[in-house]
């Protein structure tokens, strides 16, 4: 029973991380309509941003958000302005093509600048745990998990309650008509891409509290984020959170009760089963923000 609970909690915590990395992607994917295969690399840049901030200031990683968020916002705006703008109307495949190129540039750029060494941020609560009975909860995972809820909540309110949030959606659905409404669509896309990147950077910061930083640290997360976003329903924040949790739980249970190499397999099979039943993901577009 205790083991079961522990397995569940471990799964939920990992799921929270999957949700966290998916929030920025679901925004970019859902609003700017860009298939960004370099998403994991945005996570990686966020991790390095936190790392270097920590190196120079010694700040607690949570405080490094003050740097990683604006830095990544800028990165998002720049990439939107100089790259994504050119391919927004292009077929998904063209976008994949470009962003795979971008992924190579970022991964190998990081390798050239930072080297292949693995780095990490040291801080007081890194190794701390909460214990309840026999159940163990690593604090850093809990922080990452909580952050995913906070960011999803803030983004939800932003998108569904503010004019600019709605304008993002309008601009995606019909650029020309959005312009007729007085919406500066380019600006809206810059902001959306900036926020998406900033959220992803924040995810990178959270992840750097328990993972290790090197140029390929984001690669694995990129794919997981895609799976989560699709599982949850494209552009749906609730879906991203629920989807992330489900995958994490499936992985944890797969590892414990089937075999240690079945975690991802179970998560992927769950994904396929859900999509066979609900071809538009857990939460269909109707409920999307």
């Amino acid at each position: 029973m205790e083991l079961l609970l522990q397995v569940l909690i471990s799964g939920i915590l990992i799921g929270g991380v999957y949700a966290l990395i998916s929030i920025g992607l679901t925004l970019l994917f859902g609003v700017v309509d860009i298939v960004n295969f370099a998403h994991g690399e945005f996570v990686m840049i966020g991790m390095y941003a936190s790392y270097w901030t920590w190196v120079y200031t010694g700040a607690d990683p949570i405080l490094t958000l003050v740097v990683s968020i604006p830095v990544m916002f800028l990165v998002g705006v720049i990439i939107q302005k100089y790259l994504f703008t050119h391919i927004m109307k292009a077929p998904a495949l063209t976008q994949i093509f470009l962003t795979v190129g971008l992924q190579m540039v970022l991964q190998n750029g990081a390798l050239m600048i930072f080297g292949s060494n693995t780095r990490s941020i040291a801080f007081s609560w890194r190794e701390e745990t909460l214990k309840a009975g026999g159940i163990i909860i690593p604090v850093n995972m809990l922080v990452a998990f909580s952050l995913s809820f906070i960011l999803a909540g803030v983004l939800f309110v932003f998108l569904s309650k503010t004019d600019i949030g709605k304008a993002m959606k309008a601009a995606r659905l019909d650029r020309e008509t959005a312009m007729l409404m007085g919406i500066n669509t380019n600006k809206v896309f810059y902001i959306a891409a900036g926020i998406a990147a900033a959220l992803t950077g924040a995810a990178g910061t959270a992840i750097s509290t328990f993972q290790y930083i090197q140029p390929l640290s984001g690669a694995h997360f990129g794919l997981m984020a895609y799976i989560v976003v699709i599982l949850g329903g494209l552009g749906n924040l609730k879906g991203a959170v629920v989807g992330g949790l489900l995958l994490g739980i499936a992985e944890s249970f797969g590892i414990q009760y089937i075999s240690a190499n079945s975690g991802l397999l179970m998560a992927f099979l769950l994904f396929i089963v859900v999509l066979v039943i609900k071809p538009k993901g857990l939460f269909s577009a109707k409920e999307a923000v």
Partner: protein
Amino acid sequence: SSKNGDVKEVVVGVLYPTSGSLARLGGAALKAVELAAEDINEAGGIKSLGGAKVKLEIVDPGEKPETAKSATERVIQNKKVSAITGDYNSSLSLVTSEVAERAKVPFVTASVSDTLTSRGMKYIFQVSPKGSMFGESQVKFAKEYIVDKLGKKPKVAIVFEETSYGTSTSEGLKKTAEKMGLDVALYEPYSANFADASPLVNKIKSSGAEILFPVSYLQDAILIQKTIKKFDVDIITVGGGAGYLMPEFIGELGEAGEGVLSVASWNMDVNKNGVKDINKRYKEKNGEFITEHSGEAYSAMWTIAHAIEKAASADPEKIKEALATLKLEEGTPGNIMPGGDIEFDKTGWNKNVHPVIIQWQNGIPATIYPAEDAKSEFKH
């Protein structure tokens, strides 16, 4: 002869991955090869060729068979190499060796897979121990020092990353463990590069094992060890090399890493001539101590130099002949592999080599087993 007198330099192709997931160790190994080439040239180059210098042609084989193939072709066809070395990763070496075999260029590798020298090839030479030997050493050591000496229950857990290296070395682990009467409570591969080690550690914990044999690359190794500590799992780790031997491992774990054990195909303090000096110079240059693959890479490069020396020719065919009958005795520069002389059997494997066991002591991997190679003692 006058013909050989014209040779001013001998070109050796070097294929260590410096991009992708293999970049960390590949880059480190490449540095060691460069150091070896420097040492060789400083020591007068190839004397039988009138002091010809060794010239390295470096090419990145990437992380895929396809890129490895193309890189090998590139260096062999376009650079007129006399021999090649590199890859450290067995999957890449499998491809490189095929290309080398067909092009009739000798390939000296430090990769560990048993398969490499089991295919009847004539141009491959493996200076390193075979993968299957690692598990044997780990278990033998654990039996002697932990089960028998410390009186631990013989319940063990074997977890290994589901990669070429992980699966090939784990076979030896399991076989030997069963042979030695250890109770294997858990024997499972896991998917490498996990987001979090908790599920795996939950599983290790619930298996009730007291000795853990993990085969992992760096990030997984660190996460497993950290999570073991967080989850209060009382278990002794005898790692399977790779991640368990890297400077970052101890850097991250600090105190928690002290006392962790691991198998290694080579270590910076093995009981061999010149090792200390190599480590010192390597560290001066690269800011970190020299790790197992780099040590082997260094040795492989010297092995090639000796073979060229013996062949007194830059001709690949003659160098291959020389390698087949080469015998680098104890004390010869570059013979730093544990296990006496470097000498290849019919399959091309360095038949005297064996792995060692290290323990992290004072932030340094100290060789503790077998006794002939060790300078330090097992501490508990």
